[in-house]
């Protein structure tokens, strides 16, 4: 028997595989992890505290900076919460625009995940492919609202900018293009033997554990639980269009990978249907009072972001600023299971497991 010594190793906060400033202290026995303690808060900006002194419209840019890989869905959850509280109706065209940008955002977000995940595992080139195609979506957003990452596109009652001329046609062209490229991704990576042996059977948990830990998104669905808020508690236009909810069976990193890849093609399917019915004309802002002052009350609105359930809990006292606002951030909740998964794994698998959870540190720390 080889004698090994226990070693305390610090991973992060500046570690490339943590995609930000996430830190985890691991205790290793030789190559095997015996204990892991995550340390959070390096990117804590106190969004919830700041929001208490801001009007609802002023909070929207702060949501951009929470999950900066998927700002459109963060925008939506806040606007949706205020709209539910005030019972505002959204014009058809505005809702279509929101729907389209949210689904494009889901694809863009999954592409970032796909590229960087493979980069973490050791494959350089897929990252370049992913960012090449994500760039098209980012350009589309840039044309729509003048920003590439922090969009500030949605408003309570609708959206800020109407689609410029020809924009919808560009999206229409993008959908078949992306379908083609998705096939390319699969031939490039999905069947690769080295890749499969790195992710199959790693980081396994069952459905009961996933539910107990409140996991959501692909992290929950990889265990076979068919739960997608878009399907089960529909918002926006999701009850109008057909799409499947991909689920896994084993609950390992490979299932999380296949779920997300399948979600891209389902998003394309949703986009196709929505683009076919996109209204030619119409308002982009509903009837909203000049000063947004929701009535006294509470609301918890939740939607399916690329990372899982993102929620917004507003306590209003009838003022223009929220009395208390709390964001349920999927990355924060999903990350809780991370130290549990690490025990008994090797150091190389730390990166594999963390990458498969798909966190954005801006959202973990808020």
């Amino acid at each position, binding site marked *: 028997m080889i004698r090994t010594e226990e070693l305390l190793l610090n991973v992060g906060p500046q570690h490339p595989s943590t995609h*930000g*400033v996430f830190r985890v202290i691991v205790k290793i026995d030789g190559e095997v992890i015996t204990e892991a303690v995550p340390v*959070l*808060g390096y*990117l*804590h900006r*106190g969004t*919830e*505290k700041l929001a208490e002194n801001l009007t609802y419209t002023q909070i929207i840019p702060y949501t951009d*900076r929470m999950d*900066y890989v998927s700002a459109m869905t963060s925008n939506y959850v806040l606007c949706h919460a205020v709209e*539910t*509280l005030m*019972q505002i109706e959204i014009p058809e065209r505005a809702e279509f625009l929101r729907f389209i940008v949210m689904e494009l955002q889901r694809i863009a977000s999954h592409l970032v995940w796909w590229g960087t995940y493979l980069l973490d595992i050791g494959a350089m080139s897929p990252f370049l492919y992913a960012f090449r195609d994500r760039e098209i979506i980012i350009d589309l957003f*840039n044309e729509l*609202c*003048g*920003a*590439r*990452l*922090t969009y500030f596109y949605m408003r309570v009652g609708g959206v800020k*900018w109407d689609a410029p001329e020809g924009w919808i046609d560009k999206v229409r062209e993008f959908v078949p293009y992306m379908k083609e490229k998705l096939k390319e991704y699969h031939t490039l990576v999905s069947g690769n033997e080295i890749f499969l042996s790195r992710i199959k059977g790693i980081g396994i948990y069952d459905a009961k554990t996933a*539910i*107990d*830990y*409140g996991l959501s998104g692909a992290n929950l669905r990889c265990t076979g*639980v068919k*739960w997608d808020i878009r399907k*089960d*508690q529909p918002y926006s236009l999701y009850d109008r269009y057909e799409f499947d909810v991909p689920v896994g069976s084993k609950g390992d990193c490979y299932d999380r990978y296949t779920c997300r890849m399948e979600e891209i093609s389902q998003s394309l399917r949703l986009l196709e249907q929505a683009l076919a019915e996109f209204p030619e004309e119409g308002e982009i802002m509903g009837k909203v*009072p*000049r*000063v947004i*002052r929701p*009535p006294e*009350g*509470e*609301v*918890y*609105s*939740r939607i399916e972001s690329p990372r899982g*359930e993102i*929620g917004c*809990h507003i*306590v209003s006292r009838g003022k223009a600023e929220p*009395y*208390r606002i*709390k964001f*349920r951030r999927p990355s*924060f*909740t999903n*990350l*809780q*299971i991370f130290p549990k998964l690490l025990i008994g794994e090797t150091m190389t698998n730390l990166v594999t497991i963390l990458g498969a959870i798909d966190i954005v*540190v*801006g959202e973990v*720390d*808020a």
Partner: protein
Amino acid sequence: MSEENKETKDANAEPSDPRAAEIQESREDIKLDPKLEVSQEDVSSNVASTDRDPESTAKEASPAAPAETAPADAEAKEKAIAEARAARAAAREKKEQEDAAEASAAPKEPSPNQPRLDRILQIIKENINTDAVEDSSINERDHDLPTITIRNSDWFACSQLLKSHVELNLNYLRNVSGVDQETHLEVVYYLLSLSSKHEYCIKVKTDREAASIASVTPVWQTANWNEREIYDLLGIDFPGHPDLRRIMMPDDWVGYPLRKDYESIDPEV
């Protein structure tokens, strides 16, 4: 993080975007617009005045009619008009009040979730004790969500019941929020059953001075970091929590930032 910086730089490098100028312009418009000062109440009262009840207006006008039959007297006419106007305003006010009363009274009857609320109250009363529920209501603004306030001392037993009860089976804890209500602190739990898709909102209150609520981490693991966050930012103790430490703020931070009376110990920060 590094990516965000990169992207921002990229965006700055493209000043030729015609939309940038447009944004600037429209923002100035908003600032100059005097209507911005119009409050929500003004808007709603304007709406109310346009859809006056024609019947009531006619009724108010009739007492003024005899004055008009008298010899042409401008003063009397003016007086009558003023009277009619006042009467109309009064009628409008009365109607508004009635509408408000109606609005508050009407939706209480048909809430589709009322049976669900009654059922969960019954289950809690039967299994815990009759005083466990402090308050219950239907949150009409949030899709008729059944909302229940549980007595602090009964909360842990109640949480176990909610999860394990065959009929309720609330196995998924969606969200935990801490709220400083100034008179007391409050933790709000949003629970969901993945099998029946039923949702409930549970509130537990605690005293501001010695804030303490039983931890539900042994019941739902989701609560672990959420309770740490509430402890960190609102200063509520969670007895029974396996690892209650600050999570967002540094370990040596003084005070609880999300409390309404929080003042930073260092004025420079």
